[in-house]
């Protein structure tokens, strides 16, 4: 499979740290993949995202983006291929109104005025925020602000979108809203999505889940495979899917539970059938 990003033998630590956060770290991300990265606070998730975006420079190792090796000469060029959406919607709204905010990134890239207008309008329509284009940020909900942030990202036509806990401050409706939007955009725009998240429902949408702990990859597999390790995830301080929580609670009461990972729907079906059998 073609790689859109590749990290090879990476070594990184912050200047005040004594030991490596990442030591000989390797990870390849496929084009058009949805990759979820899960791990507790401080496991290195956000640092990894900043390394991929060239915001942090590793002490050793290589980062390849879209077949090019990142260097101080091409980092600005490569960064255009990557869009990032951060956690706090308040901290990433820079424009006086919605349209200005989306235009900010395009202005930075010196996109001509006429073209900029078209791309702002197109991006806002894509995220269903066009009718809000003249609104001030104060009038928007958290979910709407994140949609504007996403419009700002897709207006730049990136190949990779990194969501750094982009839904963690939203209410359940806002969360659902943002995730279904990303899912749709990924298909239609041919994006690769890297989602850094604590939200297990968000991670379950991924093609592949990477479990990160203190800069090491503990597991990298399909959501079903990773989630079947319920107890391991809990021990790492991570959430597990609700069906696994039910399974663990039943197991503690000596119920004979299925060993493989069941989705919530399948778990409901299993319980209903097992009750009937008795």
């Amino acid at each position, binding site marked *: 499979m073609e790689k859109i990003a590749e990290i090879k033998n990476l070594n990184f630590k912050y200047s005040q740290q004594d030991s490596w956060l990442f030591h000989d770290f390797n990870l390849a991300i496929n084009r058009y993949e949805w990759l979820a990265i899960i791990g507790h606070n401080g496991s290195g998730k956000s640092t990894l995202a900043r390394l991929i975006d060239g915001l942090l420079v590793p002490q050793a190792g290589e980062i390849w983006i879209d077949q090019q090796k990142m260097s101080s000469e091409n980092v600005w060029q490569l960064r255009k291929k990557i869009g990032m959406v951060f956690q706090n919607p308040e901290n990433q709204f820079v424009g006086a109104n919605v349209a200005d905010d989306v235009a900010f990134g395009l202005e930075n890239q010196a996109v001509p005025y006429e073209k900029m207008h078209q791309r702002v309008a197109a991006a806002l329509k894509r995220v269903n925020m066009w009718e809000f284009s003249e609104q001030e940020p104060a009038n928007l909900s958290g979910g709407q602000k994140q949609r504007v942030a996403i419009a700002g990202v897709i207006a730049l036509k990136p190949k990779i979108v990194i969501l750094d806990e982009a839904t963690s*401050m939203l209410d359940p409706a806002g969360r659902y809203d943002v995730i279904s939007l990303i899912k749709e955009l990924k298909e239609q725009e041919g994006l690769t999505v890297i989602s850094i998240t604590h939200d297990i429902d968000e991670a379950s949408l991924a093609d592949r889940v990477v479990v990160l702990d203190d800069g090491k990859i503990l597991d990298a597999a399909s959501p079903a495979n990773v989630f079947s390790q319920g107890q391991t995830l809990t021990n790492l301080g*991570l959430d597990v899917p609700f069906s696994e*929580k039910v399974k663990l609670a039943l197991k*503690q009461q000596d119920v004979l539970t299925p*060993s493989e990972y069941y989705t919530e729907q399948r778990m*409901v079906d299993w319980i*209903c059938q097992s*009750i009937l059998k008795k």
Partner: protein
Amino acid sequence: MDLSINFEKVDYIYQPNTPFAHQALNQVSFSLPDESYTAIIGHTGSGKSTLVQHLNGLLKPTHGRLMVQEQMITPQTTNKELSDLRRQVGVVFQFPEAQLFEETVLRDIAFAPKNFGIDEEKAAQLAKEAAEAVRLPDSVLDKSPFELSGGQMRRVAIAGILVMKPKVLVLDEPTAGLDPKGHQEIMELFARLKSQQHLTVILVSHQMDDVAEYADQVLVMEQGKLLTQQTPQQLFSQVEWLNKHHLGLPHATKFAFEIEKKSTFKFSPLPLTVSQLANQLANFLPKGVSQDE
């Protein structure tokens, strides 16, 4: 039981008598007993934050009155009259660690008592007790708060509020941004503090699982009005009413309804947490040790 908090027809209007006037609270009346744990739920803009800002007098009602820990607050109450109340009501806002500023953890926690005129030595003693209450290890007390992890920084900020020994603790989405383990630890910390220090707790939350797990009553806000005050058990049994107001259910309750839909099994009472769900199901499911272990 003694009342800790009593609202009587409280209105709050932002920018009154201007074209921008906005009524954020509309005739809100309720009372909460001492040592209760109350969750406030409702959508963004429903008035939750405006309501909790009345509890320590950050906002005063435009009309109506409220009583908090025997302190009456009316539109005429002066800030000077409220200084005692502000010691008794501790508020943990979202991302409280943004307010950390001192050079060491201990000095940061001791800031409030020193500010209220308590001498250095006594303030440091109180700060150590508060650090212990939130289970901060001694080894971090002399470190800069900014060297700590997100979860520990939040503990420092919470200790800085507990150090004043409040009677009422107001929590406005106190675990936003923490990982699941940090979330659980902080929520359990509040539950433990409540019973040890006999606190009245008010929690603003979107997370129905927390409401189900910790609260003994729920206030539902919508467009500045208090819609209802009920126990979690009563509230989460009314699925249609909740749907109508676009409010969610605890995950375990949703799961229980799915089982009832697809089988003849009936839960009684409706489970609100995973352990309640498993307790009711366990005796009707096959027992034994699975082969994979």
